[in-house]
């Protein structure tokens, strides 16, 4: 399988990640942070080591600020629904994923005032001005994706972070597409809550999520056993346990640790450059295929994550993806759970085909993808007579 759907989850995991997951079940199979026996303590220590690595990677103040969640989506929900109250203002960008827009719409029904800051493609300053306009006196929180999962557009996170800091507004960043691909430092970027999908750019197992929390969360969405303060009917106050009710996903978390090691061994910068070079190569190839409609600009360093959206004229996005799948090429066709973005692109009815390379993809694979797409486009030539 030639896998180019890494924006959904990285298709190939490093051997070290697979080994870490295996090892967790062989050597540390106990309920971490619950019992007093050696196995439970050892499991908790292994998880602590991963918190330490994650804290270092994202510049978090301490290990306690690293909260493990079932997914990046869960992390976003914990923050939005745990903090916002009726009459609070919430500003989100126009490129958000449903992981943000759906909880935001639910909160709107409960009395939260929702505003959308229009992203101006390839114009960071204009985008920041959009956020400035969207912010109102009651704005309590700004949520922004670090990079669109449809277009790869990288958002001016540092500038928006400064804006939020100046106005004393909570700043939440959805780094699902960028953690492990672009450098992130929560303190330098004034990020109060960073939500991470480690199964993507950190090459960790699916079913893992990370929330880096620099501020308190008033209401805890998922309550239950934490291994601490068990005689009390309320959640403990201290992070991370306050947010981690239920048995922790030890195999997944140790996979996260190995994934962080893998990314650090390669270097975030090197990974980004390598993925972007391949993205540029594919982009240039797509431009030479008759009938290709591109929805993303030529990928530029710092402006784009390694994501391309396109369509083949006369074919639906899902049909193109289906045809590629017949040649064992995995891409994503459809709306990519980001309807706001597709409304902007004018592709809300049919979506786009998304190609998203990762570090394991090769130029040979890109050539095979382009050759196959060209063949599909040639066979589909009657489109010329449709319009």
């Amino acid at each position, binding site marked *: 399988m030639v896998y180019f759907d890494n924006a959904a989850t990285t298709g190939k995991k490093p051997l070290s990640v697979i080994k870490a997951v295996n090892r967790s079940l062989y050597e540390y199979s106990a309920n*971490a*942070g619950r*019992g*007093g026996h050696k196995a439970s*303590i050892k499991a*908790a*220590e292994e998880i*602590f080591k991963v*918190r330490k690595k994650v804290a270092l990677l994202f510049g978090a103040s*301490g*290990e*306690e600020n690293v909260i493990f969640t079932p997914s990046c989506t869960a992390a976003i929900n914990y923050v939005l629904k745990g903090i916002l109250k009726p009459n609070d203002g919430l500003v989100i960008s126009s490129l958000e994923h449903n992981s943000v827009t759906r909880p935001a719409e639910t909160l709107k029904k409960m009395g939260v005032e929702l505003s959308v800051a229009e992203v101006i493609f390839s114009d960071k300053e204009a985008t920041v001005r959009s956020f400035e306009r969207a912010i109102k006196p009651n704005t309590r929180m700004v949520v922004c994706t670090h990079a669109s999962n449809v277009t790869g557009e990288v958002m001016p996170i540092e500038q928006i972070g400064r804006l939020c800091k100046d106005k004393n507004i909570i700043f939440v960043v959805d780094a699902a597409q960028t953690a492990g691909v672009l450098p992130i430092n929560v303190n330098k970027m004034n990020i109060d809550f960073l939500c991470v999908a480690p199964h993507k750019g950190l090459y960790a197992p699916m079913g893992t999520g990370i929330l880096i929390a620099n501020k308190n969360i008033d209401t805890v969405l998922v309550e239950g056993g*934490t*291994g*601490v*303060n*068990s*005689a*009390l009917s309320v959640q*403990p106050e*201290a*992070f*991370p*346990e306050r947010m981690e009710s239920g048995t922790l996903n030890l195999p997944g978390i140790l996979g996260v640790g190995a994934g962080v090691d893998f990314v650090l061994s390669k270097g975030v910068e090197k990974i980004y450059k390598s993925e972007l070079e391949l993205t540029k190569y594919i982009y240039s190839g797509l431009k030479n295929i008759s009938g290709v409609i591109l929805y993303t600009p030529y990928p530029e360093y710092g402006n784009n994550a390694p994501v391309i959206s396109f369509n083949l004229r006369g074919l639906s996005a899902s049909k193109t993806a289906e045809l590629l799948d017949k040649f064992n090429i995995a891409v994503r066709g459809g709306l990519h759970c980001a309807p706001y973005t597709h409304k902007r692109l004018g592709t809300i009815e049919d979506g786009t085909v998304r190609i998203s390379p990762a570090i394991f993809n090769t130029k040979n694979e890109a050539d095979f993808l382009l050759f196959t797409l060209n063949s599909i486009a040639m066979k589909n030539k009657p489109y010329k007579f449709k319009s």
Partner: protein
Amino acid sequence: MQRYFIITGTITYAIKCRDALRHSGYSAELKRAVNVGGNVGCGYGVVTVCDINEIKKILSHYAIRYLQIKKEGD
């Protein structure tokens, strides 16, 4: 020197506490705490042999939250 049980509550702070004490040159071991700190229930802590003022200095320096410091055996 006296043996103390520093009750941190969470395992995360217990590990941070242990590492901070060890980094400062003291022996320290994790231990499960049952129904401690005003009967709040289970939790974790660290057993160490160290001067009480030194313990407080280390905990403050590393910003480690704790619930209680007990003389071991109390």
